[in-house]
């Protein structure tokens, strides 16, 4: 039993913040941001939390397939900006859409989160009556240091996801590769939460420390442009295909120059690497499904197309899913 994607949907905040908007407050410019990252603008939540955005995605997925919420078996949300430590964002979504028969939990795997969540979801699809929602959602704007121009310009908010149905078709899901390089876990971090020594005798003190985003530039660049393409190629070959046979490479939308370099390393035409980061920035776990949804809705991904979904980021993690849409 494998999965097929029977619906895609997205929900992004209405507020658009352009590079020029940021340049009014930070020592930066549209030219600097766009030339280094490809980003022109991003969506920033005003009052919405991750669960709000994910709930809207979930509702759209149900509407598209005219599926009753009670038919959903599981809801998995991939996020690094959950509403709470507990309850899981997925549980809130489950409650909001009244998917009373669904179990729900979050996955934390940074920008690989959506691909990791797909892997987990696969195990729950044991019949053609099984439906699982996999949604990536973030409100990274709420954990950024907005005075730090090196990181504030990179990220955006949004949510997107897919509705999976179990299928007996042998060529719907073709392979995956999940990699974690835990010894480099400190090279890309955001929000160290629990630290210091517990002082149980002074209960008014808090032991939560929030650190903002930090990244070892060259190491992460090398990880993205050297390690990731090697793993991606191996995953495609292991699935019995060549890179030339892939129709679409849906790469985590971190940075246009990274993606261009990836295409070069894989010796594939850039036309196979769609990008929408110019409008959304890096939306971490929402990045891949947001791109997938746009490509599907605009007819660029067609039924039968061979697609490689590739996330990479904090962990360090790499997640690759190979599907025939």
């Amino acid at each position: 039993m494998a999965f097929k994607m029977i619906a895609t949907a997205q929900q992004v905040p209405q507020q658009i913040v352009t590079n020029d908007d940021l340049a009014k407050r930070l020592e930066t410019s549209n030219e600097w941001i766009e030339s280094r990252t490809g980003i022109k603008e991003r969506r920033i939540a005003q009052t919405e939390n991750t669960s709000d955005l994910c709930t809207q995605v979930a509702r759209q997925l149900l509407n598209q397939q005219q599926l009753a919420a009670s038919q959903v078996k599981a809801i998995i949300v991939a996020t690094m900006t959950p509403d709470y430590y507990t309850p899981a964002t997925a549980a809130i979504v489950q409650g909001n859409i009244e998917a009373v028969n669904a179990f729900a939990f979050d996955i934390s795997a940074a920008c690989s989160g959506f691909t990791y969540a797909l892997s987990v979801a696969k195990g729950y699809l044991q019949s053609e009556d099984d439906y699982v929602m996999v949604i990536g959602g973030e409100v990274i704007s709420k954990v950024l240091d907005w005075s730090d121009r090196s990181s504030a310009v990179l990220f955006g908010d949004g949510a997107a996801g897919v509705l999976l149905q179990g299928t007996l078709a042998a060529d719907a899901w073709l392979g995956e590769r999940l990699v974690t390089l835990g010894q480099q876990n400190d090279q890309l971090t955001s929000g160290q939460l629990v630290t210091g020594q517990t002082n149980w005798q002074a209960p008014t003190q808090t032991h939560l420390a929030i650190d903002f985003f930090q990244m070892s530039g060259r190491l992460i660049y090398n990880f993205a442009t050297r390690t990731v393409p090697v793993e991606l190629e191996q995953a495609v070959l292991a699935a019995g295909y060549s890179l030339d046979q892939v129709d679409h490479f849906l790469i985590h939308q971190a940075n246009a120059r990274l993606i261009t370099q990836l295409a070069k390393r894989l010796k594939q035409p850039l036309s196979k690497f769609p990008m929408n980061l110019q409008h959304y920035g890096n939306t971490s776990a929402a990045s891949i499904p947001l791109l997938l949804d746009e490509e599907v809705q605009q007819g660029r991904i067609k039924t039968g197309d061979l697609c490689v979904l590739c996330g990479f980021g904090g962990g360090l993690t790499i997640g690759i899913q190979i599907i025939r849409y």
Partner: protein
Amino acid sequence: MTQAEILNKVQAVIAEQLDVEIEKVTPPTNIREELDADSLDIFEVMNQLEDDLEVKLDPDESIVTVQNVVDYIEQTLAAK
């Protein structure tokens, strides 16, 4: 490798990576300011040189000119 060979290699890689004419890549050229290179460009140049010369290059912020790159590579190769 001689200094001249290293210089030729560095000039070729920088010209290709930064998409500039090789005549503009002279030893005293300031890579960031005169060739409009940013940090990602520097990473790419170093990565390409690592691949081509089969040596690990981990320079610090003192790399400013083309000659700095050549000298750093010469030292690194000598230490191998």
